[in-house]
């Protein structure tokens, strides 16, 4: 039996960047989870902000669903800037 809840931890390493998943911690509540995450994942000044989320609250896409779930995006190249060929004079856009 697990004593404490499993929380997933997300760290923002610098202002202006997204939070990134780094791992998990155990804690009795969210306050403690934040503190435990601080001790564990930011000992070397790795972060400016932390999120903790109970692991059971996360809904993930099924691992082997890559094909139906993500491949349809592969042929929509018009969503990427590199799809649009511009003359060199304005290609800095």
């Amino acid at each position: 039996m697990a004593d404490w809840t499993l929380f997933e931890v997300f760290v923002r390493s610098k202002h202006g960047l997204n939070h990134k998943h780094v791992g998990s911690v155990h804690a009795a509540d969210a306050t403690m989870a934040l503190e435990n995450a601080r001790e564990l994942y930011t000992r070397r000044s790795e972060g400016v902000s932390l999120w903790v989320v109970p692991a059971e609250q996360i809904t993930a896409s099924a691992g082997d669903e890559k094909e139906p779930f993500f491949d349809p995006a592969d042929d929509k190249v018009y969503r990427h800037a590199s799809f649009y060929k511009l003359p060199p004079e304005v290609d800095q856009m």
Partner: protein
Amino acid sequence: MKNDQALIEYLLRLADTDMVLAQRFCEWCGNAPALEEEMAMLNAGLDLIGQARNWYDYAAELLDDGRDADHLAFRRNEREYRNLLIAEQPRGDYAVTTVKQFFFDVWHHLVLTRLTESSDERIAGIAAKALKEVTYHRRRSTEWMLRLGQGTDESHRRLADAVENLWRFTYELADTDDVEDQLAEAGIGAGNVGDAWRAEVARVFAEAGLELPEPARHFYMDGKNGKHTEHLGFLLAEMQYLPRAYPDATW
């Protein structure tokens, strides 16, 4: 006493208290109730030794007798040590550690806050850095006071027992002696933080469901002036073993 001499005394009290408490944290290594708590205690211990080193360095400069920070930490005996009595009490169970730490953290936070305003710039600088760390220590120990106080019957009982056992040492936190008064008048030291200490402890006790005892009365022991309980001797014997056993060694 000249201000300089009083200042050395004062610095050693701050340093020794940090050092002795950190040593008690070290004793938790491998024994904490959860790995997460182990990390947290080692972190707090690291903070305290870092602070002790800063105070010792300054004291060594003022002493100017060839002793350095390590010498002050590892070669003075229990009658020369100036830590608060509460710091040297055995780590006990997690309730004892929590109460000790809470009493100290509240005091430490008040003292450091005032020291950031010290007319001695060196002290103000060290205090400003330490205050960030201690703000977090106080937050953590306060949270644990509430968890244990409101948690289970057992945790509440253990917490109340710890308070009963440790309360008698708190007069040192609520009172000042000549050294402290003199430095406070000179604008250097923090002076008496007793009222604020008691108010904050009362607030947390009320929330934790603990009864606030009458202010602790003085007794004949006095850690600030080198009169300790029996525990300190053993703590120092262990901590100072290598430098004492091998006085000529370089580590």
